[in-house]
């Protein structure tokens, strides 16, 4: 099998890798923000119950923030278990547990990836949001801005600037994590190399795929650096 044949076959697998990468990024970036809002929610339905004289139990209940608790529990589970297990669970789980028809393989992979990455992103966002000085919110408040105006017109941009570097880290990791998709037989880059090895008994394509990953993450690094420079027009 010639070098060109191998390259073409690997390129086909690489398209699937790109698909997983692109769709995951596109969906998990906004979903992460929703999870961030959940994990920072101050909604406390029993707040009104407590007064100075209430018992400790009532006071604890009044401080209970259900949305925040549930979101944090969810993020803990997703970040605390391997992505590979999550992919397997999304693909085989519905069939094994409910006897439901399995999702298409690529759909199952995408769902697992999007949820997993959204959880990681949400924590990066939260760190970014919490790092914005309180004075920025107060300045917006005294100028009569609404909460959402303060968030979208003042805070969000500053958050983006602060999180470009850690987001870049996750994005580069995602490039290589896509290889986990082959656990449910999605033929991405690594799996297509495996196929060649199995059929043609040659080993070098397995090393050759590293070049694909390197070139792609190199390209992303350049893009991210460009973005970081663009955002650097002000300091602070």
């Amino acid at each position, binding site marked *: 099998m010639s070098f060109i044949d191998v390259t073409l076959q690997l390129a086909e697998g690489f398209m699937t890798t790109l698909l997983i990468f692109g769709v995951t990024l596109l969906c998990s970036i906004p979903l992460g923000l929703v999870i961030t809002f959940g994990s920072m929610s101050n909604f406390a339905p029993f707040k009104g119950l407590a007064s100075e004289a209430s018992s400790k139990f009532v006071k604890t209940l009044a401080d209970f923030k259900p949305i925040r608790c549930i979101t944090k529990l969810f993020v803990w589970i997703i970040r605390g278990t391997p992505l590979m297990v999550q992919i397997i669970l999304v693909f085989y789980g519905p069939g094994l547990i409910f006897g439901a028809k399995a999702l298409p393989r690529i759909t199952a992979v995408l769902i697992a990836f999007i949820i997993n990455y959204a959880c990681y992103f949400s924590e990066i966002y939260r760190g970014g949001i919490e790092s914005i000085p309180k004075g920025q919110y*107060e*300045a*917006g*408040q005294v100028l*009569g*801005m*609404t*909460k959402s105006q303060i968030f979208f017109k003042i805070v969000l941009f*500053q958050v983006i600037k602060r999180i470009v570097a850690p987001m870049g880290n996750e994005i580069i990791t995602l490039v290589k994590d896509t290889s986990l998709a082959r656990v449910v037989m999605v033929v991405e880059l690594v799996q297509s190399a495996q196929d060649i090895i199995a059929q043609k008994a040659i080993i070098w394509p397995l090393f050759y795929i590293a070049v694909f990953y390197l070139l792609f993450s190199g390209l992303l690094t350049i893009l991210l650096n460009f973005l970081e420079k663009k955002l650097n027009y*002000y300091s602070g």
Partner: protein
Amino acid sequence: MAFLEIKDIYKSFGKTEVLKGIDFTLEKGEVLAIIGSSGSGKTTLCRCINFLERPDRGVFLIDGEEIFNAEDKAYTDKQIREKRLHFGMVFQSFNLFPQYTVLKNVSLAQELMRIDGSEKKLSAAEKAEIRADIDANSRKLLDMVGLSEKTDSYPCELSGGQQQRVAIARALAMKPDILCFDEPTSALDPELTGEVLRVIRELKTSDRTMIVVTHEMNFARSVADKVIFMADGVIEEIGTPDEVFGDPKSEKTKAFLEKSLENPLA
């Protein structure tokens, strides 16, 4: 009837009582200086007036209209937004928006209120007209604080004194009835305080009412119409600058003034 009436303000943080019954009135066009040592509650009072902290008890009125009453628990966000526009606030640490130019810092809130927040649907021509009006007004304010050359700069490119002057223009853009300054020069290098104090002094016109929390005794004495000395969460002494600085009645005021005016080199 006084223009601003503050009645019986109490505020605690947990078990610490910071304000223990603050009462004062202010006439339109008057400048009030609030002095006192750190921890006496000056800043908290300023923040309460601007709805950044909610007093536990108390009422404030502007022109006889009740703006805030701690008994009324249920102010909606919208009500608070409308009420707080009676007041403007200049912070110790400026709090300019770093990603916007000086001009945009001044015009942003007006744009959000008059264009994005407009109740009726605006045509493109109306929007352009409002924008032009806001732009002209913002430039005028920046000219007034001496920064007409810096409209396109970013806050990080300015000195502390210039940043604070932008913050003053930004607060004025909302046309507040009463402008509050929370230690406006405390974060500045000594050589930069003069330019900010000069701007505040120039703002003193017949109809501009101001409350200035400050450590600059000479400034308070020369600019203010009324001085409040706060100690331990209460108003220890209130009067004209000549009364408070020239002939303080309370021992605490005397001790504070002696310390503040003491020249360490003499």
